[in-house]
């Protein structure tokens, strides 16, 4: 949230250049046509604020003046089906103020059980996950391959690993797992089996080397001012903290392999977010790390336990003007339906939310402006973000939640507010988006200080709902109302015999001439975790001609003539099983 003081040729195709001067350029993405006229009707999904009826009473603590950067960064939210009933439950992280911490007061995070009827029940105390630490965010993984989703909580002061006991309770196994060696300001921790040994590993980006015994004084330096108004210091002007990769030893313990793997961040950039995904499509998990105000990392996995940062030459390190932005939340999605995962990242106000279009062959182009993403985001500080097909149209929309860092920002008289609205961009099916927040929901216009964003079909209605955690006050739960004539399908995957949560498994569906691609991932967004089900909207399609399940550690499974409107489960190498919920 750093502010600025100012055939084998299948992928490539055969590229023909014509008339001797011409060169070969992969035209994988023709320039998108001009945005549709605003007078043309667009099928707009509706988002309804149902927070009050969910019985969720959680409130994130915050200090009124946010004098220290460590008070501004918490608020990740995780959807975790901890009890295996198929319905996502919700874990809200919480953090104290500096004053509270100095007085040894803790902030209570909360786990809410999904009652399947539109309501949730606070089960924090029974689950034993209320006071992990000075919590920032959370993510899901199955570190012990028992098929139960475990919870990693990132903290100002390391990480906490909760082992899911399968009986509604968790056990803090941070010490016994060896993860207690992590002492830094951990942010977007993510699980992924980078060495393909069947045991999910853990990457932990770290943010600022923040010293509670030497607190940077509010407004004290040039880096502690914003538009000439005194504000909290940092991250600029403070030291960064190196990142960490912990290899899962397969016996419940982890070993720090950061340096040997080449992902130890010797530059000490301000790491905030991370995602594992096979960007190279070579069967090995690569790693993208969003650094606040510094170049991003795109670590390519060489398959021998080592990574190489190729972000700059791939076009995802900086903006299209060669400028480092305040990279925070990460969204991956195949918004073009061309089989490639593009990257969207939220940024600070007076910057812009960036969309790096994946051109294939590890090459990306910043298309934020021509895609219609950049301009509406400029006034806001963006955090949680996600590609999500809100209308079951078969095309990925983009959601971005916002909220400034400085309560004092309104004193700057710069037209910038502390509480900010959320943004919904509707995919126009031509490589561009249209910002349609107001048409989608009045609730999105309610200014809040948002941080985390997670996506999931909360009550098995065949739509993807949004869960937003706010730094100040309660969360916002948004129920999605998609076009009822559009169809959908949902898949729950289970890897076997390892990777039971099927992390980084992908599903590609074909409906007529259209293909869609989605992936199950740990973490992402801003310090948040979306549901592990894969949900596709398929528009008017009445049949999925083909469903291909691409396992990261096994052969692809293909199913044909799958009917939409249902929930399916699939155990690796098994059969696709209809699993509609009983209500």
């Amino acid at each position, binding site marked *: 949230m750093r502010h600025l*003081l100012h055939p*084998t*040729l299948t*992928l*490539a195709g*055969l*590229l*023909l*250049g*014509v*008339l*001797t*001067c*011409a*060169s*070969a*350029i*992969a*035209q994988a993405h023709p320039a998108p046509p001009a945005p549709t006229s605003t007078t043309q009707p667009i099928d707009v999904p509706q988002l309804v604020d149902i927070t009050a009826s969910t019985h969720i009473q959680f409130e994130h603590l915050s200090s009124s003046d946010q004098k220290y950067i460590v008070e501004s960064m918490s608020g990740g939210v995780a959807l975790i089906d901890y009890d295996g009933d198929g319905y996502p439950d919700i874990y809200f992280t919480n953090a104290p103020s500096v004053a509270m911490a100095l007085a040894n007061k803790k902030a209570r995070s909360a786990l809410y059980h999904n009652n399947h009827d539109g309501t949730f029940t606070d089960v924090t105390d029974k689950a034993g996950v209320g006071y992990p630490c000075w919590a920032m965010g959370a993510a899901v993984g199955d570190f012990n391959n028992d098929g139960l989703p475990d919870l990693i909580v990132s903290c100002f002061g390391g990480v906490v690993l909760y082992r899911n006991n399968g009986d509604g309770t968790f056990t803090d196994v941070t010490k016994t797992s060896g993860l207690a060696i992590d002492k830094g300001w951990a942010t977007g921790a993510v699980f992924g089996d980078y060495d393909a040994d069947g045991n999910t590993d853990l990457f932990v980006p770290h943010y600022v080397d923040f010293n509670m015994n030497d607190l940077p004084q509010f407004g004290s*330096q*040039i*880096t502690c001012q914003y538009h000439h108004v005194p504000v909290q210091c940092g991250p*600029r*002007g*403070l030291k960064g903290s190196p990142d960490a990769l912990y290899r899962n030893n397969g016996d419940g313990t982890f070993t720090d392999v950061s340096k040997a793997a080449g992902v130890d961040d010797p530059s000490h950039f301000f790491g905030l977010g991370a995602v594992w995904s096979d960007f190279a499509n070579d069967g090995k998990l690569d790693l993208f790390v969003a650094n606040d105000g510094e170049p991003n990392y795109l670590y390519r996995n060489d398959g021998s336990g080592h990574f190489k940062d190729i972000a*700059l*030459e791939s*076009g995802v390190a*900086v903006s*299209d*003007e*060669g400028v480092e932005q305040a990279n925070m939340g990460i969204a991956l999605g195949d918004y073009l339906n061309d089989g490639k995962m593009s990257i969207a990242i939220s940024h600070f106000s007076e910057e812009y939310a960036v969309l790096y279009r994946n051109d*294939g*062959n590890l*090459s990306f*182009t910043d298309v934020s402006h021509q895609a219609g993403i950049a301009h509406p985001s400029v006034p806001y500080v963006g955090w949680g973000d996600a590609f999500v097909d809100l209308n079951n149209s078969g095309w990925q929309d983009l959601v971005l939640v916002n909220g400034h860092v400085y309560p004092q920002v309104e004193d700057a008289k710069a037209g910038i507010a502390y509480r900010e609205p959320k943004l919904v961009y509707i995919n126009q099916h031509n490589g561009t988006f249209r910002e349609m927040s107001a048409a989608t929901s009045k609730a999105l216009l309610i200014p809040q200080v948002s941080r985390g964003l997670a996506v999931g079909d909360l009550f098995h209605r065949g739509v993807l709902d949004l869960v937003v955690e706010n730094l100040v006050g309660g969360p916002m739960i948004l129920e999605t109302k998609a076009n009822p004539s559009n169809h959908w399908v949902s898949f729950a995957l289970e890897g076997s015999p390892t990777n039971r949560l099927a992390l980084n498994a992908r599903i590609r569906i074909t409906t007529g001439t259209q293909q869609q691609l989605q992936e199950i991932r740990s973490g992402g967004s801003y310090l948040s975790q979306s549901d592990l089900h894969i949900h596709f909207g398929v528009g008017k399609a009445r049949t999925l001609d083909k469903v291909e399940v691409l396992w990261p550690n096994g052969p692809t499974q293909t199913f044909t003539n799958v009917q939409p409107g249902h929930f399916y489960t699939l155990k690796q190498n098994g059969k696709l099983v209809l699993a509609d919920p009983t209500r």
Partner: protein
Amino acid sequence: MRTIPLGVSFALLTLVGCSSGSGSGGTTTPPPPPPVAASPTFAPTPGLFTTGQSVTLADTTTGATIHYTIDGSTPTTTSTTYTAPIPFTADVTITAIAVATDYTTSPTTQGLYQIAGPTVSVVQSTHDQTQLMAAQAATLFTDTTAGTNNVIVDEAQTYQTIEGFGAAFTDSAAPLLEQVIAADPSNYLAHFRLSTVYRKLHRPDDVKRELDAYTRYKDMHEKLTSIYKTLDSPDKTPGK
């Protein structure tokens, strides 16, 4: 509209097999049927030509008269009689028969003569970079709806003259940015943009060189900015 197949296209030549007929002797055998006239031959051989040609028809049957059409229809004895080479400057299908006294009319011979579009140089790059702008055999664009992988050309729609397509703008951007950098080698943004152009042109070594320059000069700019800010700051405390 022209439909142009990508890839080498050969002219269609349909040659119907000749049969000479045969009979067996016998005192009561009726007289043998008249022999079949030989089919006409075409010179040059039908195919693809870059310029107009004249087609000479010939026949080996003594006294034969050749009748032909140029619209693909089957010729008859009332069709045009061949008297001189047939010139063509556009695609034409010549179909001919030979007729001779005491002979049965010959089988039909047909030849497709095509005038190619401009010759195009072809280069090929592959994403595995085993080939980068590698010269390929020249290709002629032909005018036929046959085949697959067609490019449809609307000849009625014209735009400004442009050397090639696809990469032309990128090609143009590279020398312009190179000129900018020649004028100011410390322009790190120009280095960055040029690296982006080179990346699209699949020139990895040039990408690396420009990114190195971008990083080096950007770092220099930031250090200078920091120094200036320190000088301007009341407390003389430098930012990171």
